[in-house]
């Protein structure tokens, strides 16, 4: 009996560092990264961003055109 409890105590002592380690390590979206799904998010955000840039450039061109028209 005593032997079993000693063994379990030893097992606990061995496991303890891994428990505390888990607590120290804050939970992050590691699974999402290893799955590669994060790239989907990056792609979607980039599409929106690039779309906005293209839109801004078209507005810029339009304004330049109007300026030229008025300059005459």
């Amino acid at each position, binding site marked *: 009996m005593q032997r079993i409890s000693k063994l379990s105590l030893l097992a606990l002592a061995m496991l303890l560092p891994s428990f505390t380690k888990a607590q120290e*390590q*804050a*939970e*992050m*979206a590691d699974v999402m990264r290893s799955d590669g799904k*994060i790239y989907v*998010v*990056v792609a979607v*955000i*980039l599409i929106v*961003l*690039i779309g906005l*840039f293209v839109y*801004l*450039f078209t*507005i*810029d061109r339009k*304004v330049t055109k*109007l*300026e030229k028209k*008025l300059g005459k």
Partner: protein
Amino acid sequence: MKNWLKIVAVILLLYAHIAGLLLGVPRLNILNETIRCLYFHFPMWFVMTLMYSISLFYSIRYLRNPQLGTDHRAVEYANTGLAFSLLGLVTGMQWAKYTWGTYWVGDPRLNGAAITTLVYVAYFVLRGSVENQEQRSRLSAVYNIFAFAAMVPLIFIIPRLSSSLHPGAGGNPGFSSFDLDNKMRMVLYPGVIGWILMGLWIASLRVRIRTIEEKVNELDYAKN
């Protein structure tokens, strides 16, 4: 604004978004992955401050030498600043929901930011309520100086004197409590520059559109 600066803005922002999502960040409890919000939330306030400062500069210049073009610049920079401050508020609220559990806490930092936004909204209300152009320009230029003078203590002084959930309280500058490591700086600062250029670009577009508007009005007036 020079065309190459626009390209630089595009490149920096593309980099900030990719690196902001993919590069490593410190593993912190409570914040977890949301620490990345810093890359997008903080630049909004930085750009807002810069836009309001430029607006103040043009307002003072208008009072020294009243010219319509100067007034246009003052308005449009304030307008762009307001847009960024609204984005800053909304992104901050979203972030707060996940880290503090609520969209809004009544602490000096958040309330100061909200009051500043209202002060600048009042600038546009004031402009809209005066018919005469010269009066409107002069009154709003004076008001703009007071608005900026209110913003500085509301955003930069009072929050630092009191305790707050928001980082930067108790005299700490900005985000030192994030233990901002060099990896994060390498994403944050290029992003800030990118957003600044973006803000300047949008403001310059608005100024140009307003100038065109003014010219069209003059032509109409000449016709009649």
